[in-house]
């Protein structure tokens, strides 16, 4: 068995496990936890397109989740447009906003860029909280929007069971992971990596760093906004503080940093570690110490940054490499013996 075959087999097994999991996990509560796990893995993978590969640290991505949720929901509530169409409209809108924010901010480096994205995100959130209606569009200020129950159907994006939500977010996650894989192996991926690490050197070699970053930002915002619609349809209710607040932006960055920025598996590994922790501390420990999960997040982040600053993916893939070498060598060794 060659290394390539091994990789492919493992990936197929992982995908099969993910698709077959609901056969074992039937409790809606646990299914919901899995859905949110994939939701965060998806969000972080989308974030990773710009936050990981372009070498900048945007900390205001929740605003694009908000744009997605508000666009599709307002279109559904006021104009009867299916959330599936609204989701794409929201994605395009978010990409445009992302480019508009990116144009001035990508000139900044390091912490200044972070702070700027926070400022934009918070500014937009406060605006939404103070706007009751924007022209004919009912934004409903801090009260948020409630999506009324409709007959459960694919077109309405509403289902009685958690299962369809599970598969929708799983497919979305696989799509964005595949896209990340392609980008990381494409010219743009290399341009981005070069521009992120040594912008001057990359520019000197003829790479249009700014355009590459804007492209990755637009893609990242587009996919992030799709998650907003998904969340709105899953919960059927959202409000600015919960959906567009900094908590969500930070959690995305946490997951990426702990899992490993700029790697394909990082966001998934980060979500696998942090999401269950979050859910179980909330259910079982919230009576004792509200906010404890954030303290635990912080501790884990400190430990990871101290000992594995590249995130958990690097050591894990080292272990995997070792194992893979052993496994792939074994048939060879046998072949020699025979």
């Amino acid at each position, binding site marked *: 068995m060659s290394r390539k075959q091994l990789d492919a087999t493992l990936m197929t097994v992982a995908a099969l496990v993910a698709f077959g999991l609901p056969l074992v996990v039937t*409790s809606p*509560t646990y299914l919901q936890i899995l859905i949110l796990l994939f939701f965060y893995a998806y969000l972080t993978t989308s974030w990773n397109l710009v936050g990981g590969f372009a070498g900048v640290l945007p900390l205001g991505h929740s605003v694009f989740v908000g744009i997605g949720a508000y666009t599709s929901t307002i279109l559904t509530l006021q104009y009867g447009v299916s959330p599936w169409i609204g989701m794409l409209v929201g994605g395009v809108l978010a990409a445009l906003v992302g480019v508009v924010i990116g144009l001035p901010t990508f000139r900044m480096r390091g912490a200044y860029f972070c702070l700027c994205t926070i400022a934009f995100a918070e500014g937009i959130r406060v605006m939404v909280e103070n706007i009751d209606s924007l022209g004919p569009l009912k934004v409903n200020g801090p009260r948020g929007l409630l999506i009324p129950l409709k007959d459960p159907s694919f077109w309405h994006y509403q289902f009685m069971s958690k299962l369809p939500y599970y598969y929708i977010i799983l497919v979305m996650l696989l799509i964005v992971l595949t896209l990340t894989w392609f980008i990381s192996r494409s010219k743009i991926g290399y341009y981005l990596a070069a521009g992120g690490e040594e912008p001057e050197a990359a520019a000197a070699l003829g790479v249009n760093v700014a355009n590459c970053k804007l492209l990755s930002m637009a893609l990242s915002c587009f996919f992030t906004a799709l998650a907003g619609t998904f969340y709105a349809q899953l919960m059927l*209710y959202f*409000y600015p503080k919960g959906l567009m607040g900094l908590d969500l932006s930070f959690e995305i960055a946490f997951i990426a940093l702990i899992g490993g920025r700029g790697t394909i598996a990082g966001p998934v590994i980060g979500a696998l570690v942090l999401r269950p922790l979050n859910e179980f501390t909330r259910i079982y420990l*919230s*009576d004792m110490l*509200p906010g404890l999960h954030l303290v635990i997040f912080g501790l884990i982040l400190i430990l990871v940054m101290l000992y594995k600053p590249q995130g958990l993916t690097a050591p894990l893939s080292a272990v995997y490499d070792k194992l893979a070498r052993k496994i792939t060598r074994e048939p060879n060794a046998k072949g020699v013996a025979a």
Partner: protein
Amino acid sequence: MKTQGKGSLLACCLAAALGLYLAASPAGAADKVVKIGNVEPLSGPSASVGVQGKQAREMAVEEINAAGGIKSLGGAKLELVYADSKSDPTVGVTETERLINTEKVNLMTGCWNSAVTYPATQVAERYGIPFVVPVAVRDTITERGFKNVFRVAAKDSWWVRDQFRFLKDMQEETGTKLKTIAFVFENGDWGTGFAEKWRELAKKDGYQIVLDEPYPSTATDLTPVVTKLKSANPDVVMLVSNAADAILLTNTMAEMQVKPKVVLASGGGHADPKFLENTGDTAYGIFDEVEWNTDVNKPGAKETNAKFKKKYGYDLTGESVDAYAAMYVIADALERAGSTDPAKIREALAATNLTSGPAMIVSYDGVEFDKDGQNKNAGIVIVQVAKVDGKPERVTVWPKAARRAGYTPVFPANK
């Protein structure tokens, strides 16, 4: 030896699996327990009211269980299962789903915050689990045509409705004629919302509006407002104020000798204990609106309040009385349903007509739900600030059935 060890391990596993299975299976009549899920703000900004609601529920459930539980279910006991909403709508929704799916509750109550109750009740509606809302005032909670949502307390717009009912009843009772009316209110969401409904009802009841004056709640001087009030000289002044401006208005009106026949406030600042501390004699005669008052003249109210105060160290409030009464509404429905099936409980709740029993310490006369699940009979209490034993006290005057025994309202307060 070794096999024996394995055997006992296996037995342990089996027992654990059985336990899990039992815990996960829906609570049937055989279990003799009816599980009631409660989503309440137990931490965060509204934690204190959440805890009040929790304690009121616990006292009611203790009483119900001690009296033999639900007899039609073979003495089934009520069991309360709590979840903390943190006043956060998203957490409220997630916890409601968890209580319904994992805890397998037979029905739900909660959530005090309108913002949490609004989406959480939709979750229950989706699963067909009855949701009894003791108190959460947003009108639209029971205006969505839901089948499984039942609200015991009055909704927002009824606070204004009852102010005008009070005026009408009292004019009839005392033979007074009130013709002109003035609106003075803080210019926020709350005040402007009230004023909007006031205008509508004042027109309907034939009052002449002589002043319509919003003011900023943060004002440090309200003399201009009071001057306008003096020249308009209305029979009735309707107020919506926060604490500081309520005190300022009352004292400025006394200073400038503005004496309308009736001053009617809308709770909030006027219900704040600070109001009576800082107005002294100037507050006498003012009418204010609350959900419940400790002196309501209803059978059992005094005893229940005394019992609650002894147990938890503070008086019952409007919110906790609603929570307490809601448990009896649920017990009554379960008794008639004779089943723990949510659909049957829902039918029984819809047919509720409760006019007696411990729940009737509420200020109104009964619980009966309309087709959207709103208690048709729910109402508000009007109190008057009066001198009792030399100290200002809030005395219940309206509805007449709940009026403090032996008290005659001073209406009009000024000739």
